[in-house]
């Protein structure tokens, strides 16, 4: 019996051939699909190359110093091959924090004004300058910061802050102009369009019925925003803020030009500091030896890891908020 069934299947085999014949007609389709797939995979290849190169160049230097020592050591002395990243990490965090504190209220206020309050005609007029703000190259922001903002901070802004808020350690010391505060302000201007545009996108997904419900119950416009719009959009706005933070952490040229470039850790916002991208920008091209190059690449690896984690979290939040708050809770 077995042999018989084998014979039967063997006999059926040729019958299948005509069925698969039309597949030959689709060869160009297969090529097209395959080609597209290859191009799509290019994105993954780019991602893999970024990680591989950073680890390849920066890895040995991290292992030489030790990960913990590298991150916690506050001395950066190229001539003695001592590489501690702490001053740069500190400067990056402080300037980004200043930028967020300044930019977040303005961005959210602006987004609320454009989506909830202003007439549509104003919105379409204003959307152009905001996109302009996003399109200005960072080196031009740096130029503006260096020759407009820094002199302005040196006199009168920083002396004024020292006089009024000088009891806080944040606002003490000589008013140099170049420093954490200048970098933070320039960063705030640069991340403003990022946060604003994503916040607008998020606010536009808030269902109109929520707003109308609050208004119908007698709420004023602001109360409707506070009670029904903002809670709905909260996750998305947090995501927008994180994307802005990611941009602030990695911003190079503008910060390099106004932060003062001094690898120190000071409490005062008036004092010059340094940031991760700034030290890479200043030292990489003239790095002395493999260890120095490696240490700078290790800083880049650190920066890369932090921004990737931030971006993943932010994108997930923005995505979730697009689907509504119920999913956020789940």
């Amino acid at each position, binding site marked *: 019996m077995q042999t018989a069934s084998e014979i039967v299947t063997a006999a059926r085999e040729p019958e299948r051939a005509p069925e698969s014949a039309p597949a030959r007609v689709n060869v160009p389709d297969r090529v097209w699909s395959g080609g597209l797939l290859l191009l799509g995979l290019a994105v993954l290849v780019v991602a893999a190359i970024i990680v591989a190169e950073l680890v390849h160049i920066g890895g040995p230097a991290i292992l030489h110093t030790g990960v913990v020592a590298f991150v916690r050591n506050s001395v950066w002395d190229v001539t003695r091959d001592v590489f501690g990243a702490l001053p740069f990490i500190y400067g990056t965090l402080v300037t980004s924090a200043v930028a967020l504190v300044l930019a977040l209220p303005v961005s959210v206020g602006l987004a609320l004004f454009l989506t909830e309050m202003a007439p549509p005609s104003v919105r379409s007029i204003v959307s152009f300058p905001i996109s302009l703000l996003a399109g200005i190259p960072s080196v031009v922001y740096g130029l503006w910061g260096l020759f*407009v903002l820094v002199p302005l901070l040196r006199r009168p802004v920083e002396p004024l802050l020292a006089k009024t808020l000088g009891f806080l350690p944040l606002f003490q010391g000589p008013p140099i102009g170049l420093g954490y505060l200048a970098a933070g302000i320039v960063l705030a201007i640069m991340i403003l369009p990022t946060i604003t545009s994503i916040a607008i996108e998020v606010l536009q997904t808030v269902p109109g019925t929520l707003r109308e419900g609050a208004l119908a119950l007698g709420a004023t416009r602001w109360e409707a925003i506070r009670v029904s719009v903002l809670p709905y959009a909260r996750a998305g706005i947090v995501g927008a803020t994180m994307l802005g933070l990611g941009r602030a952490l990695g911003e190079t040229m503008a910060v390099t030009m106004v932060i003062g470039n001094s690898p120190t850790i000071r409490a005062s916002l008036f004092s010059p500091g340094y940031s991760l991208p700034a030290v890479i920008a200043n030292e990489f*091209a003239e790095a002395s030896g493999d260890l120095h190059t490696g240490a700078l690449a290790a800083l880049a690896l650190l920066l890369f890891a932090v921004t*990737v984690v931030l971006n993943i979290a932010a994108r997930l939040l923005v995505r979730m908020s697009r689907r509504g708050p119920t999913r956020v809770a789940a």
Partner: protein
Amino acid sequence: MNSLAARRAVNWIMTGLCALALAVALVPLVSLLWLVISRGFAGLSWSFFTAIPAPVGETGGGVGNAIAGTLYIVGIACAIGVPLGVGAGVYLAERGDTRLGDAIRFIAEVLSGVPSIVVGIVAYGLVVIPMRRFSALAGGVALAVLMVPTLARSTEELVRLVPHALREASLALGVPQWRTSLRVVLRTALGGIMTAILLSVARASGETAPLLFTSLNNQYWNWRADQPTASLTVQIFNYAVSPYNEWHDKAWTSALILLLLVGSLALAGRLVARRRVR
């Protein structure tokens, strides 16, 4: 419960604060544009576009080689980045409704947030180390790596705008998938894709950080892909942080030229998009 008058007052105060946010956001923009135009305009002359930089103390000179270098490096970046970015975008739009497509889309989004200076180091490892010298090619590779993820995402969105009925009509007529994609879907989306390319080229032309240690800089004209090459952005940076006043003026004039270049690219992109809608 607060009185109605108090609640109304809060409403108007908050509305006022939000309107104030608009003013606060526009102040730096107006200040920046005004200064770039007013301080940059004085230095504009024909020779500024055609001459190479003059040494310290000498008058005259220009940034002709830097303008050419920026166009050259961005050209290299386009040659590498545009086919990959647009191709990946078409893949995401046409075949991207799978788990792999989702993964690629998400990675492209995350990659578009990677700091450009990090990408500069990647290009350094990829091109500068094997070639043992800074080169226009390295700068182009850095900018291309920056272009691919953003271009992929914007291309996808624009291809997806093509009505499904168009595709179905073509397939119903017996046109094979690949011809439908190429001749019907992509052709319809072509204007949008041009916009996406122009905008990403505008962005790439304004990048400084990834060029600092890939294409470096050059005081002279250079048309060889394997040699260090000047760029407008790096030139602005060098002029701005120099201690000489006349170089600061040149930084402003170069910034004006850079803004005109980036602005006209972005404007061209918008015009192409508008014509497509009509």
